């Protein structure tokens, strides 16, 4: 689906067409945000919760969105990412693990069938991604699956473009190594 962010922003800023703009926003980003969240938290129920929470935060903060219309996608992803990170941090607190090592635990959920893993190669690939440190994992997912530019990834993650490039490069290397084991 092609998203006209400029049109969405324009409609949201018109009080009489605001609901139309928000509907378009929901249509455009529900699926991409869900898959982004699912890749982060693995379990469907957690991704569903995070998605609902993200939408509420987006609706509450949309009046404060002052960026250019091409930054709308990154802005929504940033809110969703922070919501998912909060969920993961809670999980870490309960299990006394760090955000970097929570991936190993999430990998176990793919094995247990919680994530409905039908294909071995795809499962292995996800485990490879989940074995990455948190920052590399996030940058890799945004670049590989969401095909974001480094500029957008930088807006989502809050790290510099050059650091995003470095993180993606290392993540690619590590995923390759993992898959060739």
């Amino acid at each position, binding site marked *: 689906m092609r998203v006209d962010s400029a049109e969405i922003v324009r409609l949201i800023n018109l*009080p009489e067409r*605001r*609901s139309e703009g*928000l*509907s378009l*926003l*929901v*249509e455009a980003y*529900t*699926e991409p945000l*869900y*898959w982004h969240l*699912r*890749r982060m938290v*693995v379990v*469907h129920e957690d991704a*569903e919760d995070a*998605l*609902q929470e993200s*939408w*509420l935060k987006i*609706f*509450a903060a949309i*009046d404060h969105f002052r960026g250019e219309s091409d930054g709308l996608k990154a802005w929504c992803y940033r809110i969703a990412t922070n919501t998912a990170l909060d969920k993961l941090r809670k999980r870490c607190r309960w299990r006394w693990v760090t955000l970097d090592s929570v991936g190993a635990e999430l990998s176990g959920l*793919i094995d247990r069938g919680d*994530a*409905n*893993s*039908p*294909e071995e*190669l*795809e*499962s292995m*690939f*996800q485990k490879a991604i989940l074995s990455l440190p948190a920052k590399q994992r996030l940058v890799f997912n945004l670049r*590989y*699956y969401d095909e974001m530019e480094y500029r957008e990834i930088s807006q989502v993650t809050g790290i510099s473009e050059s650091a995003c490039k470095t993180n993606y490069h290392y993540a690619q290397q590590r*995923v*390759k190594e993992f*898959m*060739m084991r």
Partner: protein
Amino acid sequence: MKEFDFNSVGKRLPYSVPEGFFAQAKAQAKSASAKRVVGHNTIIYKVALAAATLLAICGAAVWLEVYTSPENQYERLLSEVSSDMLWEYVSEYDTDIENIDIE
């Protein structure tokens, strides 16, 4: 050893979602956004009503201050008297001045 080819996996994921999930998720999100729009408009109306009430109270206070203070009442009454009447009133004392006996 053969190098891993990313294209062999592509963007496929080992995850699935319940049937009709996205339609339901979109409907829920739209309903939440509609409530948000109503809430937003309600806030605007409440703020406008409060501002109008405040403005009315301030207006009434200013009006009372202008029209009921003693100095203003005096000036207002004076402005209502015509120049002829004023002249007539003042001219009564002309003879008094003339009759003053200065020794």
